């Protein structure tokens, strides 16, 4: 036996190493399994289970109390009694039970026999048909015989079965007799405590006992885990993973378990119910949870199921700190499509509701859009779908409007002249206030002013005939409807047009007079309508407006412009296209003014003034700002944060850029012409916040056609109309489309306020509306406000008419609607009623001048051309409901007619008769036969009708 082979090392020492290693490995493996299985969302689900258990047990208590113990006790007594009674018959009952058992066995056997026979029957019938089909007659006959033979046997078996079943039921009934009472009582009691038992079961299910513990243990949680991932797989919504579409799967409900359940409105987050479930998430709401999911609106990573990886975004710094403490939150570094902070969630509405300009359910987004339109963001920034009008005044004839000095003072700081102006400040801002830039600013302003003066054609101005009277002017401004757009004379109901203050130190009398008479002569596409002012009115208003002066602004002394600065700036522009030497030479040749004008032109091009103003030479210049069509999905890395300490999110960058655009130049070493050019709008925080929501809504995400909220033709026409209404600010005067006319609040007597246009589509005929809008005529003489002439072109007029008709779901009929009077007799009675109601007393067709206001009501001769026939019927019934505050009384209060003898007092017929009469009514015939003043003997039937309120 060869000796023992030599040892390499002591096995014992290695065993120790082995022991240590295996213990450590065991510990680390167990630790690995535990760490892998303890997921954050499991913790939340257990908390939710506990929360719903507490809720259920609370309900249980309530249900317990709700059970009226008295009735329950009485029922239990009944059960007791029934049981004792049935005990008395116990032997009887056992006998019946035995019989039932036997009956069961018999029926079973009978049924089996019956079913066997049925099998034979069916197969015989099959073979019979087969053979007959194949014309093998003798086999067919054999099967026929078989069928015949088995027929009676089969029916007998069926009969036996049925009789046995019947017997069985009888016995059951007998048994029932004994236990019946007990049965019903017990069922009664059960119904009473049914709610309670259900809740008890529910509470039992929700308690996290040891059995649940095992079912959710790491290796066993595949059997029946109570903690598991919940997700919504969305059929036609996709995540855009850059050039490939992946199906959207939202796992948010794994932690947000109570999101679509009632009853968790005030539960702690993440279990709180979604606000306004009838609009979001409910099965019948427009955004059901199964079809919409969560991330399409809120953003974030739907596939992740933990607080940080789902890319939650806090609403503000305070919430960020709270989250850091509570959930160890930190911005999810590697997920670009982060969640929108809740105060900007409305931004996602634009994804599907693209076409709608106005979204009542998304007030902040709509406000953001409106601000972007009114402050002219689209002048510099191209945004698809938002090509709007030029917001600033036309400068093509500015020479005949303003002085050069005024323009210079204005450009220094527009808000000096008029604090409420929408014109942003362009020069002397944060990044151009160092001495070097300041002088360049002044040179630029002077240059721009020079350019504008030189490149604008003067237009013929007429002088006001007489020096107007400011008091009358002020009264006229208040009465004629200027307050519909402007805030003036101490009343600021509307801010659509500029505030009429300080005009004295801005414009000349001739210009203002001509402008008031016919604004279009000065600026063809101006939104300022003409109020068809008479010369006298115009001169009164001119004198009043010119009396308002802004001395402080006038006293600003003009900055001195050094010619060498102008020259150096002009050189800078010229060297972009020419070589240094050639540029210098050319500049030498130009005179001082030419250089200034040249610089002015270049500066206008550089600052993008042509975006808001029409300027000669810049008719089709390109917008200078970056395109914002997909700003909401822009990669955060592409936003230049510079040295400004901001958190790296889109919303914080947008907010800062809107509040203080030039801050991003801080700390940068830039020549004057490469500095940031976005002007300072001085938005309030609330305005900036709404604009940020609007910017975040400009997203690139593609929503499939099926999910889009496509507007049908009618809605599109309404949107087009709303655009015009917004552009011309009709809602400044009129109550329309859900918005109350802004000036109505000024009027103490609503009858004197501009008419309410809700329901105008049903009221007026389209051809008339078309003609009226293009050239308004007075309908309600007692109104001091005048419907201005906007000078709409054909396209806008048709859009407006369609807008009014569609608002009231009335098909736009561009054909005049006539009325077919049925009989001559109706016309006659219509005339008589017309006489009796003395309509002509107010509705004079040619009102004599000087009559007091109340006598002037709309001219009825126009009625048949203006009004829709069936609207008149509604109107005569009760005018107050259609036009609240109107002076037109109701003659048929509560549907009762004051004239009983015509059509037997049937109000509807009488109204129809009056309406038919109106359609053939001609004022001449009637005015001559006007009822004489003194007591014509109208039928003195004092109609007394009692009417209850």
């Amino acid at each position: 036996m060869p000796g023992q082979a030599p040892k390499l090392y002591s096995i014992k020492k290695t065993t120790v190493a082995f022991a240590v290693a295996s213990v450590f490995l065991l510990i680390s493996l167990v630790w690995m399994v535990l760490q892998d299985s303890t997921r954050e969302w499991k913790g939340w689900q257990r908390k939710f289970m506990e929360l719903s258990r507490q809720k259920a047990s609370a309900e249980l208590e309530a249900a317990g109390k709700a059970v009226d113990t008295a009735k329950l006790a009485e029922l239990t007594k009944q059960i007791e009694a029934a049981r004792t009674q049935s005990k008395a018959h116990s032997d009887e009952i056992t006998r019946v039970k035995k019989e039932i058992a036997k009956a069961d066995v018999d029926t079973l056997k009978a049924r089996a026999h019956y079913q066997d026979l049925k099998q034979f029957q069916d197969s015989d019938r099959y073979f019979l048909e087969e053979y007959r089909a194949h014309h093998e007659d003798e086999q067919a006959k054999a099967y026929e015989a078989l069928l015949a033979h088995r027929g009676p046997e089969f029916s007998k078996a069926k009969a036996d079965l049925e009789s046995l079943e019947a017997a069985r039921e009888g016995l059951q009934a007998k048994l029932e007799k004994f236990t019946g009472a007990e049965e019903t009582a017990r069922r009664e009691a059960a119904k009473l405590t049914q709610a309670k038992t259900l809740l008890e079961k529910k509470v039992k299910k929700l308690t996290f006992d040891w059995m649940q513990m095992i079912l959710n243990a790491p290796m066993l949680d595949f059997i029946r885990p109570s903690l598991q991932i919940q997700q919504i797989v969305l059929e036609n919504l996709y995540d855009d993973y850059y050039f490939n579409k992946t199906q959207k799967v939202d796992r948010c409900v794994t932690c947000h378990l109570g999101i679509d359940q009632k009853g968790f409105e005030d539960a702690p987050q993440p279990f709180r119910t979604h606000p306004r479930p009838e609009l979001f998430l409910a099965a019948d709401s427009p955004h059901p949870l199964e079809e919409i999911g969560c991330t399409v609106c809120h953003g974030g990573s739907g596939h992740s199921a933990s607080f940080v990886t789902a890319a939650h975004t806090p609403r503000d710094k305070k919430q960020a700190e709270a989250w850091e403490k509570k959930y160890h939150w930190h911005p999810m570094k590697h997920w670009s499509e982060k969640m929108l902070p809740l105060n900007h969630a409305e931004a996602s509405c634009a994804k599907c509701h693209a076409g709608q300009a106005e979204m009542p359910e998304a007030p902040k987004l709509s406000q953001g859009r409106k601000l972007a339109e009114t402050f002219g963001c689209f002048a510099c920034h191209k945004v698809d779908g938002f090509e709007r009008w030029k917001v600033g005044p036309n400068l093509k004839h500015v020479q005949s409007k303003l002085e050069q000095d005024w323009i210079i003072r204005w450009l220094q700081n527009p808000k000096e002249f008029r604090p409420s102006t929408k014109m942003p400040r362009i020069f002397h801002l944060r990044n151009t206030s160092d001495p070097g830039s300041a002088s360049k600013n002044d040179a630029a302003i002077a240059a721009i002013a020079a350019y504008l003066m030189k490149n604008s054609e003067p237009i013929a101005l007429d002088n006001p005939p007489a020096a107007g009277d400011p008091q009358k002017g002020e009264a006229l401004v208040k009465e004629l409807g200027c307050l519909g757009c402007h805030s003036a004379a101490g009343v600021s109901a509307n801010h659509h047009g500029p505030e009429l203050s300080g005009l004295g130190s801005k414009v000349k009398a001739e210009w203002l007079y001509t402008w008031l008479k016919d604004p279009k002569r000065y600026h063809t596409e101006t939104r300022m309508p003409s109020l068809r002012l008479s010369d006298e009115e115009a001169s009164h208003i001119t004198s009043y407006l010119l009396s308002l002066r802004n001395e402080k602004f006038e006293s600003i002394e003009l900055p001195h412009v050094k010619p060498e600065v102008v020259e150096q700036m002009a050189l800078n522009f010229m060297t972009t296209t020419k070589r240094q030497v050639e540029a210098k030479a050319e500049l030498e040749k130009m005179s001082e003014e030419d250089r200034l004008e040249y610089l002015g032109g270049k500066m206008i091009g550089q600052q993008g003034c042509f975006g808001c103003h029409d300027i000669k030479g810049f008719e089709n210049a390109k917008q200078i700002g970056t395109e914002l069509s997909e700003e909401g999905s822009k990669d955060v890395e592409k936003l230049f944060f510079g040295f400004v300490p901001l958190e790296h999110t889109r919303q914080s960058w947008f907010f800062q850029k809107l509040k203080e655009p030039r801050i991003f130049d801080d700390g940068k070493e830039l020549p004057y012409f490469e500095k940031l050019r976005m002007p300072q709008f001085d938005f309030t925080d609330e305005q900036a916040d709404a604009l940020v929501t609007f910017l975040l809504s400009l997203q690139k995400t593609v929503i499939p056609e099926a999910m889009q909220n496509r507007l049908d033709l009618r809605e599109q026409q309404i949107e087009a109309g709303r655009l015009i209404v917004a552009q011309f600010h009709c809602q400044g005067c009129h109550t329309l489309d859900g918005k109350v006319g802004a000036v109505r609040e000024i009027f103490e007597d609503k009858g004197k306020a501009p008419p309410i246009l809700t329901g105008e589509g049903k009221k007026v005929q389209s051809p008339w509306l078309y003609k009226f809008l293009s050239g308004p005529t007075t309908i309600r003489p007692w109104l001091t406000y005048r419907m201005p002439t906007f000078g709409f072109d054909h396209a806008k007029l048709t859009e407006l008419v369609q807008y009014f008709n569609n608002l009231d779901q009335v098909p736009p009929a561009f054909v005049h609607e006539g009325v077919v009077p049925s009989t001559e007799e109706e016309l006659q009675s219509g005339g008589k009623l017309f006489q009796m109601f003395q309509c002509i007393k107010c509705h004079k067709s040619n009102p004599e001048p000087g009559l007091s206001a109340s006598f002037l009501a709309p001219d009825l001769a126009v009625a048949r051309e203006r009004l829709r026939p069936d609207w008149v019927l509604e109107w005569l019934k009760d005018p107050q409901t259609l036009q609240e505050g109107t002076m037109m009384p109701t003659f048929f209060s509560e549907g009762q007619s004051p004239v009983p003898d015509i059509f037997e007092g049937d109000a509807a017929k009488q109204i129809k008769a009056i309406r038919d009469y109106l359609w053939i009514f001609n004022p001449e015939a009637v005015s001559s036969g006007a009822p004489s003043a003194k007591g014509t003997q109208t039928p003195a039937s004092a109609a007394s009708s009692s009417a209850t309120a």
Partner: protein
Amino acid sequence: MPGQEEQPKKKFSFKFPEFSFKDFRLKTQVGKSVFRHGYADDDRDRALTVLTNVFFHLHPVKVRKSGARFGFTWCAGGLSFFVFLTLVVSGILLMFYYRPTVEYAYNDIVAMREHVPFGIMRELHRWGAHAMIITVWLHMFRVFMTGSYKPPREFNWVIGVILLVLTMLLSFTGYLLPWDQLAIWAITVGSNMARATPFLGHEGPGASLLKLGDIQLIHSGSDVRFALLGGNFVGAATLLRFYILHCVAIPTVVVLLMAVHFWRIRKDGGISAPL
């Protein structure tokens, strides 16, 4: 009553059948059919343990003392093989949940991070891969420092070098599978070098010489980079191609070469020792 012969009542007693594993192993047919060696603590039995076991007989029965020292071999080769095995195991577990298409790849990895049971296999697989590269380099380092590449083991050294390269390729192809920014751009950078292969890369020197008449043979659609990526850029085809390379192609070659490698170690005289 004393004196009466107490009939011992049949007392029912139950005794667990003794079971000794040793007897089971040595005596029963089942035991003997599985284990072909006994328990004896003697050299014969130790030899049989190695000889009769397909895994152990990777080693000879006896080995030179110097070769068995941890200080000499650092167990680097063995550990490389061991971590390769753990990678195969964790890799197969990952294959249960990972779908190599552009739509699902990323989401499946997120699912593993978020809720798939044993999602930690992904960590094990990734860190195992890095560990394997370090261990393989260490093994090469040890073999070089002990001069064990010298004849007769030179061919085995060549196989070792090839295995090293294949390990790096395995890691390279695996790097792309999570399909995130890190992956796609690491592979793009890596594969851009292939563009410049002499003659075979469309931006490599000599590519323009390979012409058939005026038809340029090597262009961006037919060069070695295109073959590697299955397209002009790292796309869905690349993901699938790398998945197959990573899970089937390269591991098979590696296993084959490992077999040769182990066999050559034995054939070239076991762990090297001074002459």
